């Protein structure tokens, strides 16, 4: 507990005071520990998911190991072309798997939700329905680049731009809330470690 608290204070010394040796130490310690844990876990995963099955006679696992090793040709200019094959397999498989449910959940489902009338029609529900429908149509129209945003198309695209700004601003606001929650967690632990508030 004391180690984590001292490292927390060292990290916060950057914003609360200035760039200090303590901050650099905490920063490098964090990076080193994170990478070390990742390497250990990756090795354990390789052993349990690949080497052990091979040792038991399932030689099909040699293929992904070889493909993984081929990725390490990326830093070397002469043989870099070899890494394109495993990368192509990764991208291809990932895209194919992702698209399977994406069409229904992320396209059809979202369009249906946007045009479905509210089930409990309170005034607030109607306002939400029309606001989201207008936001959906106008922000989508903003991304139509085959037609110039003039004449009849000018006002919807302008409204769409404001809707996008609202959405991005809301997302940025959530990011700030997340950082505040992180800080409050650290403050709470600081107070507990120093015995100012009790542990629960």
């Amino acid at each position, binding site marked *: 507990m004391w180690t984590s608290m001292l490292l927390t204070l060292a990290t*916060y010394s950057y*914003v*609360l*005071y200035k760039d200090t040796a303590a901050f650099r130490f905490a920063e490098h310690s964090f990076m080193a520990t994170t990478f070390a*844990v*990742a390497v250990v*876990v*990756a090795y*354990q*995963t390789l052993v*349990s*998911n690949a080497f*052990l*099955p091979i040792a038991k006679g399932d030689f099909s696992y040699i293929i992904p190991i070889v493909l993984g090793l081929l990725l390490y040709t990326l830093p070397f200019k002469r043989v870099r072309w070899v890494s394109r094959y495993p990368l192509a397999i990764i991208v291809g*498989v*990932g895209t194919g*798997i*992702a698209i*399977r*449910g*994406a069409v*229904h*959940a*992320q396209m059809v*489902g*979202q369009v*249906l*939700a946007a045009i479905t009338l509210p089930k409990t029609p309170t005034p607030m529900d109607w306002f939400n329905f029309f606001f989201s429908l207008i936001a959906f149509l106008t922000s989508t129209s903003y991304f139509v680049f085959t037609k110039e945003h003039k004449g009849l198309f000018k006002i919807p695209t302008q409204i769409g731009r404001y809707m996008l700004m609202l959405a991005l601003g*809301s*997302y940025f606001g*959530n*990011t*700030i*809330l*997340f950082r*505040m*929650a*992180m*800080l*409050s*967690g*650290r*403050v*709470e632990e600081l*107070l507990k470690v120093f015995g*100012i*508030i009790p542990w*629960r």
Partner: protein
Amino acid sequence: MAEVDRRVLYWGIFLVLVVPYLQPLGLPITVQETTKTLYDKIETMGPKNIALFSIAGGVSAWAEIQPSMVAVMRHLVRREVKVVIWGFFTDQDLTVDMVVVSVPELTTKYKYGEDWVYMGYLAGGETAVAQLASDVHAVFKADKYGTPIEKLSLMQRVKSAKDIDLVLTIDTGSYIGYYIRHWNVGKGTPVAEIGIAMQTEWLPYYPANLMAILIGVRGGAEYEKLIGRLGDGTVRMDAISVSHLVVIIVIILANLGYVMTRREKK
């Protein structure tokens, strides 16, 4: 105002956050529908049901997700629901240890292997989630502690997504999307999220694909209120509410300062 050292602001926020811990304000917490839905779902579950705890968030997000995780796990244990845990983050062992310490019934009331299991870390992102939806035993050969999956009686009931009655993804990124695409759309399994504040981007999927979402510390505080056992979420909400108020005031002051600076230049 532009000449004020930013360290004054940082110290101000730091000190403002301390006050609610020393003197709790007791601000009221209203329960949102997105949280109540999860509570109602778990209330219908019992010893014959299996819930999946999928950990897709690191220790760095504990401040936000820990209250929700602990409150939901307490509810699951109270209802005697079986629990399967696996995850995709390298530091998830610490998270599981934290949950076990916070919910001691997992070791005192529950029997490992029969009532709950921890299958360990799995690499692979969406491809791993997709494969797990089809065949869990093809992916996991043993649990975290090396026990072969054939010797875990609970895992003999879990072969694919169709054997799981509720997915709870503890999420700081996009794993909820993977579960929606492959578990909910593909297999019809109900999916709920315990997420950080930024996970509101997944609200459009509620309720069609996402049956419930507990957002940040507030979600945890709401769930603690529902299960009748207040904890870290409730305590932390006072501090977070105050910090949000400070941020709003600072944003207003900063914009006023900007407008006044522009007028002076004119």
